[in-house]
C-alpha cells in the first residue's frame, strides 16, 4: 500500500499539475508566455511515477510519459524529439517527498536532461506554476472577483476529478471503495452551462475527463459557480444542499455516494491548501 507521501506525490502529478492546461488556455497572459514555446517538461520520481507537461505554441497538455517524450534523450541534450512536443527537459526527484517539497515551494528538482532549457524552467515554467498556485489559493477577497471565482472553481473541480483514480488506486481507505462503483459515467456539472468534469468508471479503473460526457449514469448538478466553489471547498453541508436543491443528484446515487467518500479524502493530502501544494517552483 502506498505511503502518505506517495499518494500526495501522485495527486500533485496527476490531479494538480493537469491544471496547467487550463491556466494556459484561459489566462491570456499565460498563453502569451508560452506562445512560442515547443517543449516537454518531464517530471519523474526515482523508482516511481512520472508525468509530462507539453507546451506547443500556446497550448499545454499534461499526461503520461510516452515514447515520444523520450525523443529529447535520443536526440541529445535538449534536442528535438521524434514527434514529442519539442525537446525534453527532465526533472528528477529522488523521492515522492522530494517532489512534494517542490510543490510546497520548499525544494528543487534535479534537472538532469535539457540544461539548455533551464531558462524556461526558471522563468516561464515558474511563472506558470506560480499562477496556477495563485488560482488554487483562494481568499474571500479573491473569490469576490467573478473571473477568479470561475478559474478557481474550474481548477478545483479538475483537481477533484483527477484525484479520484489516484485515491481509488493508492489511498488505503479508498481502495476498498472501488467495488462500490458500478460501470458508467458520473458527470459533475456547474449550472447553467458548466464547467463540468466526467468520471468514466470501468471494470478496473476510473478515467477523469474534463467536460461533460453524454449518457451519464449519475449527475451531480451544482446550482451556480459560488455554490460549486463552496461545495468543492467543503464549505457546504452536502446532505443539506442535496435537499435544498443547491446540489442536485440524479441517477445512480450509490456511485455518487462512493465518489463523495473518495473526494472527502483529497483534503487529507492537499490541504491546508491545494493551495500550498500547487506550487511547483521548478527552478527554485
Amino acid at each position, binding site marked *: 500500500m502506498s505511503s502518505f507521501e506517495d499518494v500526495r506525490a501522485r495527486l500533485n502529478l496527476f490531479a494538480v499539475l493537469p491544471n496547467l492546461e487550463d491556466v494556459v488556455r484561459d489566462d491570456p497572459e499565460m498563453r502569451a508566455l508560452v506562445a512560442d514555446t515547443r517543449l516537454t517538461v518531464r517530471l519523474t520520481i526515482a523508482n516511481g511515477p512520472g508525468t509530462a507537461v507539453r507546451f506547443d505554441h500556446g497550448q499545454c497538455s499534461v499526461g503520461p510519459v510516452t515514447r515520444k517524450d523520450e525523443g529529447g534523450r535520443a536526440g541529445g541534450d535538449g534536442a528535438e524529439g521524434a514527434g514529442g512536443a519539442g525537446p525534453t527537459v527532465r526533472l528528477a526527484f529522488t523521492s515522492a517527498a522530494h517532489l512534494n517539497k517542490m510543490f510546497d515551494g520548499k525544494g528543487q528538482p534535479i534537472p538532469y536532461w535539457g540544461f539548455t532549457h533551464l531558462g524556461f524552467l526558471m522563468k516561464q515554467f515558474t511563472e506558470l506554476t506560480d499562477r496556477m498556485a495563485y488560482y488554487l489559493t483562494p481568499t474571500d477577497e479573491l473569490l469576490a472577483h467573478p473571473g477568479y471565482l470561475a478559474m478557481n472553481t474550474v481548477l478545483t473541480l479538475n483537481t477533484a476529478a483527477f484525484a479520484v483514480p489516484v485515491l481509488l488506486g493508492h489511498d488505503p*481507505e479508498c481502495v476498498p471503495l472501488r467495488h462500490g462503483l458500478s460501470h*458508467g459515467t458520473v458527470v459533475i456539472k456547474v449550472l447553467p452551462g458548466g464547467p463540468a468534469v466526467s468520471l468514466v468508471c470501468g471494470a478496473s479503473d476510473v478515467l477523469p475527463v474534463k467536460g461533460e460526457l453524454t*449518457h451519464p449514469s449519475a*449527475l451531480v448538478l451544482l446550482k451556480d459557480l459560488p455554490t460549486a466553489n463552496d461545495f468543492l471547498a467543503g464549505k457546504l*453541508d452536502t446532505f443539506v444542499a442535496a435537499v435544498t*436543491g443547491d446540489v442536485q443528484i440524479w*441517477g445512480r446515487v450509490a456511485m455518487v455516494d462512493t465518489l463523495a467518500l473518495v473526494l472527502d479524502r483529497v483534503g487529507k493530502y492537499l490541504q491546508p491548501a491545494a493551495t500550498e501544494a500547487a506550487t511547483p517552483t521548478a527552478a527554485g
Partner: protein
Amino acid sequence: MMDTYSFARSQELFVRAARVIPCGIPGHFSPAPLVPPDAYPFFAQSGKKAHFTDADGNDFIDYMCAYGPMVLGYDNKVVHDAAAKQRRLGDTLGCPSPVMIELAEKLTSMIAGADWAFFAKNGGDQTSYATMIARAATGRPLIVAIDGGYHGVAPWMQGLGHHGVLAGDMAGFVRIPWNDPAAFERVLDEHPGKVAGFIATPYHHPTFEDSVLPAQGYWRRIRELCDRHGVVLIVDDVRCGFRISLRGSADHFGFTPDLACYCKAIGNGYPISALVGTEAMKSEAARVFYTGSYWYQAVPMAAGVACLAELERLDAPTKMQEYGKELTGGLQRLADKHGYELRVTGMPSMPFVRLADDPSMMLHQRWCAECTRRGAYFTSHHNWFMSCAHTQEDLERTLAIADDAFAALEKSPEGQGVG
C-alpha cells in the same frame, strides 16, 4: 391529470432542522437519496392505517411503512391499547416487567428453532451482539458477511472508507459475494479454524439495486459448511422478519440458523428488537455482557406481544405477499400499457421495483417522484414495504396514481427537469 402536492412547510421545517441537526434529517430518513427531493415530504405529522399525513397536510398511501416497522398500520388500536395498559403499570422500572418473559415466550413459540430471546432496541444492537456471541462461542476472530449486505451502522457494518471507520474496525470481517457458497468455502480454507460466524440476510436486499433471492440449495450448502467447520450461522431477519413467514424467514427458505436478529415488525413502531437462538447458543449468549439504558422498557414489549398476536391472527405474511403481488402486478401492467418495463425483485411483501428502460435510474426516479407528488409514497432507492393495513381501496388509488404518473412522464420529454 391529477393535482400534485407541494411541500412548502416540509421545506421550511427542513431549513430550520438543518440549523440545529446535522444533515437536517440524518440517517436513513435523510431526504438526500429521494430524487428529486422537492417531490417528497420531509416531515410527517400523523398516521392512520396505511396512510400518513405530512407537515403540509398532504395524504400519502405509504409504501415505505417507516422503512419497515409499520406492519399492522399506523395508530393500530390493538397495539396501542396493549401499550397503554402497560404504560399505566409502568415502563422503565426498577426491575424488568414480567411482560419481558411473555414476549420471549411468544417469539420462541413462533420462530422455528428459537429457544430463547434477548431484547434491545434496534436491529444493529442485535447484529453486533450476534457477532460477539459467535466469537465467544467459537473462540475465533472472523465473521464472514456479504458484499453490500446491510446490518446496521456500527463501523464493521459500514466498511473502510466510510467516515469514522478504522482499518482495525474491519480486521475481523471478510466480505464475500451473495449466492456464492464456493467463496465461503474459500474463506474457510484460507482461514482454517479462524471463522467464528457467517451473517447474511435471508435474501439479498441491498439499497439502490435489485434484490436477489437465494439460489436453489444456497442456504442448505451454507448450513452444511457452517456445521462442518463449527461456524455460527447468523440470519439478519431485521428487515424481512414476519413479512415472509411468522416462523422466521429462514424457515421459509428451508434452514435453521443458530442465531436470528429481529426488529422492524415486532412492535409496529414501538422500539424493540430481539435476538433469538438455539439452545446450544444460550449459555454463550449469557456470557456476553450486553445491555442498554432503555432495553428493559416494558411498553414496547407489551406492544410486541400484541403486535405478534395480531400478525398471527391476520396471517400477516400471506396478506402482505398477496397485496404486494397485486400491487406490483398492476404496476407492471400499467408500465406495459405506457411502453415501459417495470422490473420487480425480492419478495412481494417488500419488493424492489424499478423501471428497467433506463439503467441510470433517472427515469425511475422521475416516475417515483410523480407518484409521490400524487399521493403514493414510492422511493426509488430502497425496497418498498407492504403492511396489513393496505386495502383494496388503497390498491386502486395507487394504480390510478401510477397510471397518471406514467402519463406525466410521457408529457415531459426525457430528461426534462434533469440538468
